[in-house]
């Protein structure tokens, strides 16, 4: 391919006119983006957004922006899923409406988005919002790094979105196995987009994880011992530790692949002494822990929601902590189960098969703990609890199919069939996504001051759960019948009915998502009715409920003193949930800074330039990053003081809300 100095490989051919559907997708992105920009301009909201949101270092706002990013990407990832389901429903002895190449792009972007740009930001958003509050801390340890982490994740997501409009996306699946993804077989920019998006967001994820680890170890409320932390904080800690240990695998696998593609090296090529198995190993040394990075915080959410809505203490707190740690450690000992069929020795396969079964044990222990928490509780079936119960039932089914796959001889039969697709969706959809939805509904009133509409929440729940079973149970059957994954079309008439059922299921999920959109609109419109500024709508047990909703910028005017687990519950039982001093000290908080958006912008430019071989622009991006870091290190005033009068005023307003609620209740 020829390449110019100024624009690298970028020409007008990069526009997606290769298929009407791709052009339509690009048009939706461009028009949608333009619509949002236009709306903000029309509302003259740019200065407000810039001041209050984009430049903030407040962990709560950063958390909310992560969640918004995740919800947008969920829509994108789900549209991909619908497209695949529609294609496979009609592609029996027919071409369907997607070309094979386009179908490949769709499953690659679906997998990549759902894992890296939906799941991860959703989790990091909730962790950001909740962990400091549950620890009784005023902020995370490094607020600036936190903002940068958000913007790097957003830059990665933007690169994936850009590939829809300019150029193509990878066709190599979310795993990007070489030699297929090497230049000789994938000469387009798709794989480069995939690599750059993952490298950029990987840095952001690492920064956030460092932040959580330090926050959890160093910033807990006075007196709070590690074993007195809420379980969600434990899972956030383990998940962040996994990030620290696992993400380098993604960086190295992606980076070396990029070196092969850009500089003609021979890490994973067929010739020149390359070794493709190295890629499989390095990628999955990252990849398997990644699924636990995604699922552990969701376990933490269930461990918070279930006791609250059972109005009981969490059963087996200690056991749950140890089980979480066991899972975190064991998650590094199973990666080979992703390629049992790729020629390892029988004994090696046996070892990894057994380790995979072993990791099911602590997970099973957790399930019993949740069930026993509900046992003899006074259960309330609000939406967060409904998601949790659906999770337990569905997750157990997925876990059992996982144990089937962990037996190497059986894996030889099921490897890369739809059985595997069914299995991991059966883990990730209930395990991660239902947990995130539970957390979203549970903590929404904390972040906004009002509750989500319960009726639309239930409708969404029903459509999602029914849709999930319809969409994925048929895939188990198809897997038994030998249907491979990643098929654009097939010629077995007896398969079609199952694909049609799966498409119906996906359609039901679509209705569920529709209900969630309506729910958000309705809840905002009816917010007066569900307003609870006092801050404790569910009868929560942990410290985040002991401040106002939404909490003030500094979270706690006076740091809470903690001596037991479930500190807020203990205080409530002792009859004194709130301790209000008569005098407040001023509090130092970080100033706003434009560095987050600056780094995000530079990372996007750098990634884009590298994808298209526009080297001068890449050099500009790197120089910009270095210059910005150095300039920042010379900045002196990075914090400001909130005066005690201002704090007093804020706190008194909240005290009045609490008193009003107490009177209304008595």
């Amino acid at each position, binding site marked *: 391919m020829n390449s110019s100095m100024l624009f690298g490989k970028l020409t007008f051919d990069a526009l997606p006119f290769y298929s009407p559907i791709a052009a339509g997708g690009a048009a939706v992105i461009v028009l949608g983006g333009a619509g949002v920009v236009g709306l903000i301009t029309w509302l003259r909201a740019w200065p407000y957004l810039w001041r209050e949101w984009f430049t903030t270092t407040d962990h709560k706002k950063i958390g909310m922006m992560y969640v918004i990013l995740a919800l947008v990407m969920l829509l994108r990832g789900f549209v991909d899923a619908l497209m695949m389901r529609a294609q496979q429903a009609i592609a029996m002895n027919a071409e369907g409406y997607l070309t094979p190449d386009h179908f490949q792009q769709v499953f690659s972007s679906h997998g990549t988005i759902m894992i890296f740009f939906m799941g991860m930001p959703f989790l990091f958003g909730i962790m950001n919002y909740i962990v400091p509050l549950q620890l009784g801390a005023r902020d995370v340890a490094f607020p600036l790094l936190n903002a940068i982490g958000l913007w790097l994740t957003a830059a990665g997501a933007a690169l994936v979105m850009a590939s829809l409009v300019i150029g193509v996306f990878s066709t190599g699946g979310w795993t990007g196995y070489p030699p297929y993804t090497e230049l000789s077989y994938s000469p387009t920019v798709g794989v480069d987009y995939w690599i750059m998006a993952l490298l950029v967001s990987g840095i952001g994820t690492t920064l956030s994880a460092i932040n959580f680890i330090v926050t959890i170890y160093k910033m807990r409320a006075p007196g709070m011992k590690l074993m007195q932390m809420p379980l969600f904080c434990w899972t956030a800690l383990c998940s962040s530790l996994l990030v*620290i240990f696992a993400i380098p695998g993604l960086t*190295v696998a992606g980076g070396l692949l990029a070196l092969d593609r850009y500089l003609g090296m021979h890490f994973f090529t067929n*010739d020149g002494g390359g*070794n493709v198995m*190295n890629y499989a190993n*390095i990628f999955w040394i990252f990849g398997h822990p990644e699924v636990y990075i995604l699922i552990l915080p969701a376990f933490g959410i269930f461990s918070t929601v279930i006791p609250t809505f059972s109005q009981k203490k969490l059963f087996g707190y200690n056991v749950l902590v140890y089980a979480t740690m066991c899972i975190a450690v064991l998650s590094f000992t199973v990666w080979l189960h992703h390629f049992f069929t790729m020629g390892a020795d029988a004994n090696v396969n046996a070892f990894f098969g057994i380790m995979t079964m072993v990791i099911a044990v602590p997970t099973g222990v957790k399930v019993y703990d949740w069930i026993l928490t509900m046992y003899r509780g006074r259960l309330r079936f609000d939406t967060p609890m409904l998601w949790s119960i659906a999770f337990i039932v569905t997750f157990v089914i997925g876990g059992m199919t996982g144990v089937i796959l962990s037996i190497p001889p059986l894996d030889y039969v099921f490897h890369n069939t739809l059985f595997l697709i069914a299995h991991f969706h059966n883990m990730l959809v209930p395990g991660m996504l239902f947990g995130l939805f539970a957390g979203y509904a549970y903590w929404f009133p904390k972040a906004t001051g009002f509750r989500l509409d319960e009726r639309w929440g239930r409708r969404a729940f029903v459509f999602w759960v029914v849709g999930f079973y319809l969409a994925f149970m048929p895939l188990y059957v198809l897997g038994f019948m030998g249907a491979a994954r990643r098929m654009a079309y097939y010629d077995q008439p007896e398969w079609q009915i199952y694909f049609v059922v799966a498409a119906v299921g996906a359609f039901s999920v679509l209705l569920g998502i529709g209900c969630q959109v309506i729910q958000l609109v309705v809840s905002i419109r009816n917010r007066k009715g569900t307003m609870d500024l006092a801050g404790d709508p569910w009868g929560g047990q942990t410290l985040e409920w002991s401040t106002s909703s939404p909490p003030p910028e500094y979270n706690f005017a006076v740091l809470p003193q903690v001596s037991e687990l479930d500190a807020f519950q203990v205080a409530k039982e002792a009859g004194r949930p709130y301790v209000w001093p008569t005098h407040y000290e001023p509090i130092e908080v970080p100033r706003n800074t434009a560095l987050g958006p600056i780094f995000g912008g530079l990372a996007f430019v750098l990634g884009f330039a590298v994808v298209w071989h526009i080297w001068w622009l890449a050099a500009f991006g790197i120089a910009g990053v270095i210059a910005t870091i150095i300039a920042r290190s010379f900045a002196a005033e990075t914090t400001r003081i909130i005066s005690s009068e201002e704090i007093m005023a804020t706190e008194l307003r909240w005290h009045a809300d609490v008193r009003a609620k107490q009177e209304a209740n008595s």
Partner: protein
Amino acid sequence: MTTEMRHHPGINLSHSRPEDERHAEVTVFGFWTFLMNDAILFALLFATYATMVNRTAGGPTGAELFDIGNAFVETLVLLLSSFSFGMGAVALKEGREHPLKLWLGVTLVLGLGFIGLELREFAGLIGQGATAQTSGFLSSFYVLLSIHGLHVLVGCIWIVVMLAQVSTFGLSRQVRSRILRLGLFWHFLDLVWIVIFTTVYLPAVAS
């Protein structure tokens, strides 16, 4: 109090300013976490090198290419730079600005010297036709060493920035904490080099 006793390795300020030490605790712990992450990155590159070392694709092997003498000089330069940084850390602990700058300057020169030696070695290899494109073995060799070299380069830039900051701000709390972290980084790179020397150069010569 127990919390005050729990120092992280690498913090060395108690002599002059105990309150800075508490402040540095949090940042230094964060930096250790980052180093852990970086160590995994190197571990994976080492593992890659180990699996690629015999994949020479008919090209030259390590035994034919490597010059242990040059690697030994590089090792000495880097070890010396760790020593000079250590001297700088002592000056920092005692709050003496001038010797601190001097030792940082020496470290910088040694660091740049190391990079120069490495580049000279690369140029020599490329001159013999042994490039990163020759074989999987050489790809992994160049990448492992360049990633380490890039780290050293970042360390050098960081030293320059700290020299400027000591001149501008004096030994402020921020500056002291940054030099502590720079020290951790620098010694870490030294350690990685030792592993490179023992897993890349020594086996090649011994075979």
